[in-house]
């Protein structure tokens, strides 16, 4: 494998200042092949980073390389081999999905016949069948997201940027989209940079996760390390939350009461089984009615509470 296949994206001290806000500040990250998640709250600088990587926005300082090409000077070359699915709606209502995707394939430099074949193939892969001949105006949000994804894949890019692809989807549509992203990375062999403000959903499909907040890197690590470090058990009982908290604190667990729920933090190096056992014993001994007990790992706010790695 060549070096470019290993490192898809690399930024070095990347900073972007707008007249009033600093969108990115001294961001140094690398992402390899496979599916990389880019997580951050709204306004954390995810979309700005993608625009810089596409070579559409100049950085204030620092450097960014995509597939071993410089984003500042080789934008046009990058855009030939990269696909982009924007966060916002970007589809004209009065053309069919087929026509639209064929047109976008031609805009990527595919000859007309190849564009038609690739559009039919890609729309099938994203799961649009007979409805692709109808005007896009009548599509559901789920179908629109599929068309947006199809136009990003139609020219068989080496890397795709998917900006909030699960936005506005219902749980089933979200699952379908995430499964599709996993397939793009694994089966299609196209590297993916996918953004979301929900770490929980990205951990299911990503190999590597980058978390940014207010334009700064919070952490960048493989998914395995990630979920380990942020394991949290949340408990809800009918009455007697405080005695339970006291009891657990008494045996040396890190507990916190947040409203009607109690959270139990499990350090990365500890055995989670012990915490569960202690919790079970405490609930039994105090004779409490347990309403909910769940593993609440990887919520974005938990990552933000921790110091940056």
């Amino acid at each position: 494998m060549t070096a470019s296949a290993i490192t898809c994206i690399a930024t070095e001290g990347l900073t972007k200042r707008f007249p009033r806000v600093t969108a990115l500040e001294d961001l140094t990250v690398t992402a390899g092949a496979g599916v990389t998640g880019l997580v951050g709250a709204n306004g954390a600088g995810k979309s700005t980073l993608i625009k810089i990587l596409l070579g559409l926005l100049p950085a204030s300082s620092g450097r960014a390389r995509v597939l071993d090409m410089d984003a500042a000077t080789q934008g046009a070359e990058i855009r030939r081999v990269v696909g982009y699915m924007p966060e916002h709606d970007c589809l004209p209502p009065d053309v069919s999905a087929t026509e639209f995707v064929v047109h976008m394939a031609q805009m990527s430099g595919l000859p007309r016949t190849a564009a038609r074949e690739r559009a039919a193939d890609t729309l099938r892969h994203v799961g649009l069948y007979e409805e692709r001949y109808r005007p896009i105006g009548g599509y559901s949000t789920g179908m629109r997201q599929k068309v947006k994804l199809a136009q990003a894949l139609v020219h068989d890019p080496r890397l795709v940027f998917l900006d909030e692809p699960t936005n506005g989807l219902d749980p089933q549509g979200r699952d379908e989209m995430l499964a599709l992203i996993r397939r793009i990375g694994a089966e299609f062999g196209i590297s993916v940079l996918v953004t979301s403000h929900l770490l929980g959903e990205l951990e299911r499909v990503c190999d590597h996760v980058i978390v940014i907040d207010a334009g700064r890197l919070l952490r960048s690590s493989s998914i395995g390390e990630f979920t380990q470090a942020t394991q949290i058990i949340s408990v809800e009982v009918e009455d007697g939350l405080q005695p339970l908290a006291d009891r657990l604190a008494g045996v040396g667990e890190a507990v916190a009461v947040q409203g009607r729920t109690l959270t139990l933090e499990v350090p990365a190096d500890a055995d989670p089984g012990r915490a569960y056992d202690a919790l079970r014993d405490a609930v039994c001994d105090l004779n409490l009615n347990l309403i909910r007990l769940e593993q609440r790992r990887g919520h974005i706010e938990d990552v933000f509470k921790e110091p940056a790695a």
Partner: protein
Amino acid sequence: MMPEPTGVIHDIGYRHYEGARLGRGSAFAALTVHSLRGAFGFGRTARAKIMPLLLSTIMLLPAVVSIAIMALVKQQGVKYPDYAVFMQAVLAVFLAAQSPYLVAPDLRFRVLPLYLSRPVAVLDYLGAKLAALSIAMFLVLAVPLTLLFAGELLVDLPGPPHTAEYFSAMAGAVILAVILAALGLALASFTPRRGLGVASVIAFYLFTSAVSAVFYGVFMSMGRDTAGKWAMLINPFFLVDSVQVALFGTAPSNGDGYPPGLWPCLIVVMVIAVALAGLFLRYRKAASS
């Protein structure tokens, strides 16, 4: 070499694209063709075809009538260089109806970022749109002119055919097409709503033609003929006609003539430059958002 396998397994898994990847030029050409087809309603809904085809047909009517006149009374009907000025309202309506279609939906539905995330640059995009609308405007005017010329040759009027006039009018049509396309796109691109775009282009035409007529009338009644002739040039159709007069020596369509010299040519170039600069500034803002 292995023998060709006889059985076929249909692989419906993902296949990579190994074929040709053409450059910016081909994307430019594809976008131009796509936009040109769209300007005449091809590849769009049936409703979108009504206006362009109706207006194109109306443009042909004077040519058909002129051919009939030539056949019956052996006399020239509409003169070639007068055709554009004679049919200016129809050309203006065509421009107003079609220029917003070329730019407004991409702004309104935010398709532009998809173009720009491809090898297409802002200048390619604008160039293709301008080329498409210029070609469309040229065709709307050049087809009737050519029909008229073919008719003249077939009817075989007494005296030599008006070949020079025909070619002058065709050259004038090129200039008119470019200036109208530049103005139409610049005006239409300032609003993402197609209806407002149509209104602003038609309002621009009505305003310029009214202002030029009023000033012309006022200056003429005051006896200031030169100022009146200059006022005529506010209307883009008379402006292009004056270029035809200056460059090719055709008879002026307004009857009174225009200011002498090559000033009209300079004005045309300046108007096109201002329109294109406005268009570019508008898109530089849109592209970075």
